[in-house]
């Protein structure tokens, strides 16, 4: 089985700007839950965008399930929760409509959603615990519920790789705890590979098996317990 994600000697810069990443080597096995931390501007979101094929490296290779990420034939297996500011959480959509949008690549682009795809949508809604509010407009939900709705959207595609970019931004401590437990349960039940990007981890900290600190490159890659002092304040890491 190929690695879920593999980067070899990757370097990247935006247009004519300074290098954001340089000499990045990384291998992620299927089923791992990996947290990416680091200071703002350190390159962690860029690294994830390279993995998702949204950016192409200036140097080196980025492989997704063994294929070049930017032309991967397995894009339908990617579940992506973008940063909150990029999501249409103020659109006049119900939770069910949001989650159904995640089923698009599995069901095909044309025509109405068929019965078996509608079932998959309901399953994803139930999995994140939003069945009771499935018909409610997403704009009327709390920040934590909105995040869970968009996670359900990602799950509706039955992903092999789930990528969450700063999912705890703007949600309260209680919602962060619920999100952490949800991710732990998804990881155990679905054996899905999860990449979790954040500058702060809070409740998720205790479920993460592997921490990757990014600051222009990878400055630490290992178990969180091996980096006790810095782990609790990754945005100010000096390694």
């Amino acid at each position, binding site marked *: 089985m190929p690695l879920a994600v593999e980067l070899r000697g990757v370097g990247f810069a935006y247009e004519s700007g300074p290098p954001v990443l340089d000499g990045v080597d990384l291998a992620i096995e299927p089923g791992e839950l990996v947290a990416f931390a680091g200071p703002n501007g350190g390159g962690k979101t860029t690294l994830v965008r390279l993995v*998702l*094929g*949204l950016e192409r490296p200036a140097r080196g290779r980025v492989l997704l399930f063994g294929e070049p990420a930017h032309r991967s034939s397995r*894009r*339908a297996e*990617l579940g*992506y*929760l*973008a940063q909150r500011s*990029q*999501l*249409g959480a103020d*659109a*006049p*959509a*119900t939770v069910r*409509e*949001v989650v*159904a*949008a*995640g089923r*698009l*690549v599995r*069901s095909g*682009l*044309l*025509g*109405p*959603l068929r019965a078996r795809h509608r079932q998959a949508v309901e399953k994803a809604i139930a999995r994140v615990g939003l069945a009771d509010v499935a*018909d409610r*407009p997403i704009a009327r939900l709390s920040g934590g519920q909105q995040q869970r709705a*968009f996670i359900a*959207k*990602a799950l509706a*595609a039955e992903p092999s790789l789930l*990528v969450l970019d700063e999912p705890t931004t703007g949600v309260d401590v209680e919602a962060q705890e619920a999100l952490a437990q949800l991710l732990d349960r998804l990881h155990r039940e679905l054996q899905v590979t999860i990449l979790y990007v954040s500058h702060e981890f809070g409740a998720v900290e205790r479920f993460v098996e592997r921490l990757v600190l990014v600051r222009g490159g990878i400055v630490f890659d290992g178990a969180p317990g091996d980096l006790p002092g810095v782990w609790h304040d990754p945005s100010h890491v000096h390694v």
Partner: protein
Amino acid sequence: MRLALASGAIVGVLAPAVGFFLVQRRMSLIGDGIGHVAFAGVAAGYLLGISPVATALAASLAGAVAIEWLRARRRTAGDQALALVFYTGIAAGVVLISAAGALDVNLFAFLFGSILTVTRSDLILVAVLGGIGLATIALLYRALAAVVLDEEGARVAGVPIGPLNIVVAALAALTISLSMRIVGILLIAALMVLPVIAATRVAWSMRSTLLLGMAIGLVSVLGGLTIAYYADLPPGGTVVLLAAASFLGTSALQAVR
């Protein structure tokens, strides 16, 4: 009048259906940009002595694709891309219309709409192309909605964002070209946007927003044309004022709920 009402009914439904995707993507003013390019197209039609509707359609399609291309490929900010096309369109229109010596009543019919200038062949054109536009929206609704909700997520999943954005821009161009006889180039963008904004106040889902917007558009056009006919008012302005009134109505409804 019956020809105008029949054409208006199609336009009244089509314009908010297309406008729905523009409003949700915060591109409400794109209709104005394309409308000004359509003006250049009408002027070119007069200059070349061919159907202004055909040249307006060609010009607005080119303008719509240009806006999308500037926005997506050249990484120009959306409002800058719009401004570029907007002002180029109006400037080209003024120069061409002056060269054609066509600053007359017919031109005002295109700018502000006219009930009496709608012909049977206009109605057939509106019915056929309007039907194609509505069928395209029905067929691609889920894909277009997915882009509205999470463009980056859709891109990651392999949804063809670029072609879908071009489809929306082309639908906007088509709507403007078909609607300019009824509502006028200067006001058609309002018919695409106002019914949707009004619907958003009381709708409970994306689908209900779309359908309510189309219903408000239909009532605004049919009501506006009827009032304009009997009160001898300009049809475009009357239609758009009714659409604006519907916003006040739904806002009031929202307030009392």
